[in-house]
């Protein structure tokens, strides 16, 4: 009998910072391979702390984190980091080389790949994020959005099966956001498991197949997009808001839409 291995499995995860702040209090969830998962929560909920467990930057103090069936321990971190790529919220924390090419090559070089393989991966990654013409530029001279794309390219070049992004749309202009979402769609279609931490509800509603809501270090909801409709959960418990399109149709429909597509459908068939 074959068992399906989850991309990520977290069991009873607890974590406290050295100043005794308990950031995670018994988190449990599992992510199947190929999923598009969004982790929602207000500031200070523990989203970033949780994400840093997925590639072993934080190692579980209590509980278990496993990646593709292997528990994350301090002895297999190199393997874990070859499977899970994390894109940080602030690209200045991730981009540090003198040229874009060198920065993107940093990850694949650490995987001990051959020179030609590294060069090919760098070219592919830069093409995927639309920065092919900027490979010799100093990343510090790029715009914020471009730096963010360099950070993403640096992770893509590692060819990880699981991609984790912390607030990917933060501080990006609308064009930048559209481009990034389009890139994420491409990667998801290619079979990657993508986990995004965000408090951009409209993006989550449009993009994610599954939503996990975390507040004060605990998971308070885990399901499909319909969890976003629960006003009490979203506004009182999670300190968030519901999708704009949901709030627009509230009061007119028992089950308001969560996405623009659903809203257009309703407008076409129900109201016209």
């Amino acid at each position, binding site marked *: 009998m074959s068992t399906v291995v989850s991309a990520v499995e977290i069991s009873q995860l607890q974590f406290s910072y050295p100043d005794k702040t308990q950031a995670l209090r018994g988190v449990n969830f599992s992510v199947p391979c190929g999923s598009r998962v969004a982790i929602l929560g207000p500031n200070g909920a523990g989203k970033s702390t949780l994400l840093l467990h997925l590639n*072993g930057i934080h190692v579980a103090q209590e509980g278990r984190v496993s990646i593709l069936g292997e528990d994350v321990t301090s002895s297999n971190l190199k393997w874990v980091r070859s499977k899970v790529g994390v894109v*940080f919220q602030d690209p200045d*924390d991730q981009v*540090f*080389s003198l040229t874009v090419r*060198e920065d993107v090559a940093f990850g694949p070089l650490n995987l001990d790949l051959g020179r030609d393989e590294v060069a090919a991966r*760098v070219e592919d990654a830069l093409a995927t994020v639309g920065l092919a013409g900027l490979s010799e530029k100093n990343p510090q001279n790029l715009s914020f959005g471009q730096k963010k794309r360099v950070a993403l390219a640096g992770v893509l070049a*590692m060819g990880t099966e699981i991609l984790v992004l912390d607030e990917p749309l933060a501080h990006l202009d609308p064009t930048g956001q559209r481009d990034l979402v389009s890139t994420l769609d491409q990667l998801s279609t290619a079979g990657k498991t993508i986990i995004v931490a965000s408090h951009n509800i409209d993006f989550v509603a449009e993009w994610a197949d599954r939503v996990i809501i975390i507040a004060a270090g605990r998971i308070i909801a885990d399901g499909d997009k319909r969890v976003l409709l629960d006003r009490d959960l979203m506004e009182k418990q999670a300190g968030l808001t519901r999708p704009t399109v949901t709030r627009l149709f509230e009061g007119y429909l028992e089950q308001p839409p969560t996405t623009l597509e659903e809203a257009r459908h309703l407008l076409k068939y129900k109201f016209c």
Partner: protein
Amino acid sequence: MLGVLEPRARVIAVIGSILIIVNLSDPRLLAAVALFWGFMAVTSGRSWFEPAKRGLVGLPVVLVLVVVHMLTAPGAPGASDLVVTLLGDRASFSVSHEGIVRGGIFLLRFTGAFLAVTSLAAVTPSNHLFNALSRLGVPSIFIVTAQFALRYLAVLQQEGRRMSIARQSRGQVRASSFWAPGAAGSIGQLIGALFTRSAYRAERVYAGMLSRGYDGFIRLSDESSLSWSDYAAAGVVLSIHTGLLIIELVGL
């Protein structure tokens, strides 16, 4: 000229030369070494000026050490020797001929070593240097520490700029001098905050490096291999210095 060598060959040539320089005592030979490395520095082109400018930050310390050498060298003061009198007649120091020679030797050694190091820095980006040191077998603890220090300096600079902008945006005006009332306290607070912020930021950058598989070893996509010409060139540089040392020891 140093730039045509493979990075490991450059490091071996420079470090070997410096080890010999600090053992030379003849001012004429030290001057010859300084001329040699001056030539290397000039052939490095404009890229030499940046590390040289940064290195000169340490010049005041070097000058103090030169003076200390001059004042502490044993030697009988004579009528023609320099006598330095400070604070009226309450303190006086005599500088003998031997003291001046000793101070001069120290300065020449510094000059030779400074020119050698800055020539290396001019033609060797830091990641190439760390890669070369790793491949030469330097323990990774030293390399990781040096990388951290370098990274920390860059972060310090960026954070300092951000803090300065934030302060000026909220109406801070620079004090007229360090000795103005409150200036020293304000500067101390700024430095403390700067180091704290930079430490946190450096930790995040380090986490970013770890996330991409960093294990203390800097790998390069254009990693080079040593050729016979590299060995030969490094050998020539070291031979020149060794030859000078032999000349001094033998007393030619």
